[in-house]
């Protein structure tokens, strides 16, 4: 294990310990409601980036995977009474299988056609849920989540900690993909798929793997959502906003490394949450649009590259 990897794991461990301790120090539950949403977007942006950032395949279907995770987790919890960790694991496996299937069907097409095909996944899944009474259909489904365990002072704090664990696992997975042979292969695909194929990179297999991993993380991000809202309905679970944020956050943060989506999500989701209860939601949406345009125009590498550039300049 390299020095960087050890430092990374120590950092993750510190964040987790702080996450477990924070609910006992910070008494106001509001911060944990907001923190949950921010961490949810850290996970979504990280999951999206495995395929969209590393491999360069723009996926508009993030909301489809997220919604699938929401519904599977709620269904397993309410009908079979499965414990929360198993619900999250099942959602991740389901997301991986869904990603694999989507990959088989769509990865032979590239560019804008791939993006459109992934958008179709959201519509298909939402329509299916609309028509399954066992999942509440259009009326939605009330879900009364599990009682918080002894180590958490309240339900919102518990949801926050669960989401923190998922986010930490997602970031660790993204970093592993990035520094391993998978990441090297995906970077080759992004640079030139034909050249990579000619050089012996198993492009389809790598893309399928990226689809499965991305799908698993996105679905896992949705798994605790029913317990956060205590209610779910298809319009919110498959909301276009989730898909748009999943793209905007890595683009703002930077798509080349695991740091980018984390930075982008922390910045954008925090600003969105603050703006919702301070300025107004219209300005909030305008802000997202303006920031996105500014980054695409002036810093296409995102925040991560901006910081990197500054550091390099400082060193030289």
């Amino acid at each position, binding site marked *: 294990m390299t020095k960087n990897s050890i430092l990374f794991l120590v950092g993750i461990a510190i964040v987790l310990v702080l996450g477990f301790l924070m609910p006992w120090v910070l008494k106001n539950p509001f911060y944990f409601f907001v923190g949950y949403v921010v961490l949810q977007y850290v996970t979504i942006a990280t999951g999206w980036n495995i395929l969209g950032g590393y491999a360069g395949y723009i996926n508009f279907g993030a909301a489809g995977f997220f919604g699938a995770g929401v519904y599977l987790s709620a269904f397993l919890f309410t009908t079979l009474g499965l414990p929360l960790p198993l619900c999250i694991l099942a959602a991740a496996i389901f997301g991986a299988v869904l990603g694999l299937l989507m990959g088989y069907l769509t990865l032979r097409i590239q560019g804008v056609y791939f993006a459109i095909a992934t958008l179709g996944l959201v519509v298909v899944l939402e329509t299916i849920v609309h028509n399954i009474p066992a999942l509440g259909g259009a009326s*939605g489904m009330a879900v009364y989540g599990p009682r918080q365990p002894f180590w958490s002072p309240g339900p919102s704090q518990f949801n926050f900690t669960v989401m923190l664990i998922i986010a930490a696992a997602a970031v660790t997975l993204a970093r592993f993909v990035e520094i391993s042979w998978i990441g090297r292969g995906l970077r080759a695909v992004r640079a030139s798929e034909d050249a990579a194929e000619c050089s012996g990179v198993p492009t389809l297999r790598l893309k399928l793997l990226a689809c499965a991993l991305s799908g698993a993380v996105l679905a896992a991000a949705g798994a605790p959502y029913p317990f956060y809202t205590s*209610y779910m309905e298809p319009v919110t679970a498959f909301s276009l906003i989730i898909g748009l944020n999943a793209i905007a956050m890595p683009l703002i943060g930077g798509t080349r490394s695991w740091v980018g989506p984390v930075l982008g999500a922390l910045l954008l989701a925090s600003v969105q949450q603050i703006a919702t*209860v301070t300025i107004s939601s*219209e300005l909030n949406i305008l802000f997202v649009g303006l920031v996105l345009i500014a980054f695409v125009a002036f810093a296409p590498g995102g925040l991560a590259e901006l910081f990197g550039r500054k550091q390099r300049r400082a060193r030289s």
Partner: protein
Amino acid sequence: MKTRRDFHKLMAATAAGLAAPAILGSKAFAQDKPIRVGASVSLTGPLSSTKNGLIGYELWRDDVNAVGGLLGRKVELITYDDQSSAANVPAIYSKLVDVDACDVLFSPYGANLSAPVMPFIKQRDLFMIGMFGLAGNDVARHDKFFHSGPWGPNSGRDWARGFFDLARAQGVKTVSIINADLEFSKNAAKGGAEVAKEYGMEVVFNQSYPPNTSDFSSIIRNINAADPDAIFIASYPADSTAIIRGVKEIGISDKVKIFGGCMIGPQYGALLSSLGPELNGLVNSHTFVPEPTMQTPHIKYFFDRYTPIALKQGVDPLGYYIPPFYYVAGQLAAAAITGSKSVDPAKMAEFLHANTVDTIAGPTAFNEIGDWKERRVLMVQLRGIKGNDLEQFRSPGRQVILDPPSLKTGDLAGPYNKARAG
């Protein structure tokens, strides 16, 4: 600072200032604090057409503050935009309760947005007035939740019972039901089918359609093929328009005695104005219309002030469906606070459970889960509409109340084709 004496004076004044709250007592201090009322409103997103309700809240707040507030304290209204998304609701209500320290809560609009907040208020044992959530408290059964909307008990099933009461009186034996594949319309259609069965009517055609359907020609032809005596429709504004236009193009059997039921859209000025005479004959649900049995000086005064604000803000200039009941929500909260002389949730709830409250929408009493004890959903028939002038809908006789009998201002004009011809 000139001298040491000046410094001592300043220190004494500071100490007195800091000690004042303790000397005066917490009671005196609390009386200066406003009573905070918190709500989430859909200012943006698909439900933004309901944002005119905010005018109702604001008028109520201004009225209360103009007479000195409640229990001698001013009322402060704190609202946030939920963007019509259930995902934003938990954090907003936590902000209202945990950061803004609101004493009274109003729910978001409708059942889908209210559902996420129900476990929260039950767990924290908070007092809330519900805004238009059909059967919103039927699952949580929280004893400190009260509907401002006139749905009545068993609203999930009985919302449109008035339509079937009218149909039964006309000797209807067969009925067709169509509904949008969305929460409210699905519930209304399901409840309608149950009531039809209870009344011994045969449902000869029952179909839901995807929410973005714009062409209803095949559905209308299928309804005609089923040849029903009545057609019950649960739709949203865009589909309501398409259905009315589709009927105009294709036509409907002369056998149909009553048509409509639960169409969202013809309650709003925009749709009334755009469809105009095409709405003649339609029997539809509503919450308030300016008929003699409902007009009181209080509600007239409310609309006298609502209309100029609505025109200025560019929202529904009529505002009959939603805004009065947002004002009613405020009146219920005010009655609970002044009646119980407290902002304690248990005492406020106890007062509302035990007393009838006079509101601009009439007297209101509640059952154990906060439903109005008596259903007061109106079934109105649109009649005598000429041209597309919106002002005509402010006069009586355009939206005649057929049900409930206590507010009735006319009898059903039928069959539908005859009534449609005006």
